[in-house]
């Protein structure tokens, strides 16, 4: 809930453009309605605001691997290390206790803030979007299969 004195959107505040389509964005009669508790559509009462000065970098977002298929509960792993080991052995960062997974199966390596998945000569290999690879730099939405497990990769910013 916005504070009572927060600036309010104008009834017609902005447009989103998608190809030839124009999607109006505002408080009234819009494709995307920005709601306000105040039902008074008195346009002159829209407050004047000034953007805060200074450059604001795009907020960062972590790289994430989410298990979407495989034995056990789905889980989500934030990739916050330079090297992340994956395998059946106890010493792995992501431990997959399954016969289809080698003891030291694969690793994720961060290079220039991108993650590459690498096969460590595993028995069953690794697959990215269905293709067996020795290694692959991951992109948002990629599916990585290791044994019976499938992970969805969400690229960070």
């Amino acid at each position, binding site marked *: 809930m916005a504070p009572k004195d927060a600036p309010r959107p104008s009834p017609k505040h902005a447009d989103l453009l998608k190809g030839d389509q124009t999607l109006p964005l505002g408080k009234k009669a819009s494709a995307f309605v920005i709601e306000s508790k105040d039902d008074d559509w008195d346009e002159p009462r829209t407050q004047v605001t000034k953007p805060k000065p200074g450059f604001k970098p795009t907020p960062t977002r972590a790289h994430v691997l989410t298990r979407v298929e495989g034995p056990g509960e789905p889980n989500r792993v934030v990739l916050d290390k330079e090297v992340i080991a994956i395998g059946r052995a106890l010493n792995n960062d992501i431990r997959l206790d399954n016969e289809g997974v080698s003891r030291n199966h694969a690793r994720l390596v961060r290079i220039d803030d991108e993650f590459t998945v690498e096969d460590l000569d595993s028995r069953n290999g690794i697959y990215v979007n269905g293709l067996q*690879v020795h290694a692959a*730099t991951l992109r948002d939405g990629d599916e990585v299969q290791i044994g019976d497990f499938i992970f969805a990769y969400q690229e960070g910013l």
Partner: protein
Amino acid sequence: MACFVRFWGVRGSIPTPGSKTRRYGGNTACVEVRSDKALLVFDAGTGIRELGVELMRKPPPQGTHIHLFLSHPHWDHIQGFPFFGPAYLATTKITVYCPEGDPKNYQLLSGQMSNAYFPVRFSDLKAQIGQESFHGDGVEAGDFVVRRFQQRHPGGSVGFRIEHEGSTVIYATDSEIDLQLADQQQAHAQPQKMRGVPKELVTAMRDANLIIADAQYTDQEYGSRIGWGHPRASTVVDLAAQAQAGQLALTHHDPMHSDRDTDEKVTECAARALAHRSKLEVFGAREGVVLKVATQNIRDTK
């Protein structure tokens, strides 16, 4: 021992940076093929810059010998070379392979670094850069044997058959196979039927583990691009199927194609291979993917 193939540039014609091409990549042609004894590079499009960055992370003190093969010297196959970091190191040796008696590849690779185009002259590069001719159709490069074959492209281009200890990789880009079909009318009237591709290309690619091939256009696009030097992706599937190859990596993606467009092209090509009852695995070449090519892919229990 296996050899490894890495895609550094898979885009055709012109670099296409941007969100629409982020997954497959926007760099122009460059493919690395390596063993533990030799490093071969096929084409020097903008993808070679990233390869250079990778090689410069830990340059071996004794230096690197790079065997550079160019399919032809059109821009998208040479334009990355001035930004190839190892070319600036005295410990690097680069051998550029040219057809016998035709130093055009070497001359145009170096000619793009005249002062009018680029601030550093080719002669100022510190690496030992030399040219070597193909004697006949084949040449030895480390523990590889590389053979070449002619392709149909404006100005000409060559494809390469890369052999390594019983496994074979084909690099065949900028090849308008559709102009060489036995029956072009049939290909137009009955597009689903297997096309009669040139026998010499089938022979050159026979039994390859992996074919990396120009597959720039869809069937719908090709009609207005005849003579531009690139094939229908569907025709490349027919060629790879007739050569009884194991895998086909579609590359030289059209600069107008988004990642979704490329996905659709790959899906259609995979369906075509199935319809031909071929065991060919079809996929889209993508920057940053490394494949292990071995005579036997399934390894023993570790």
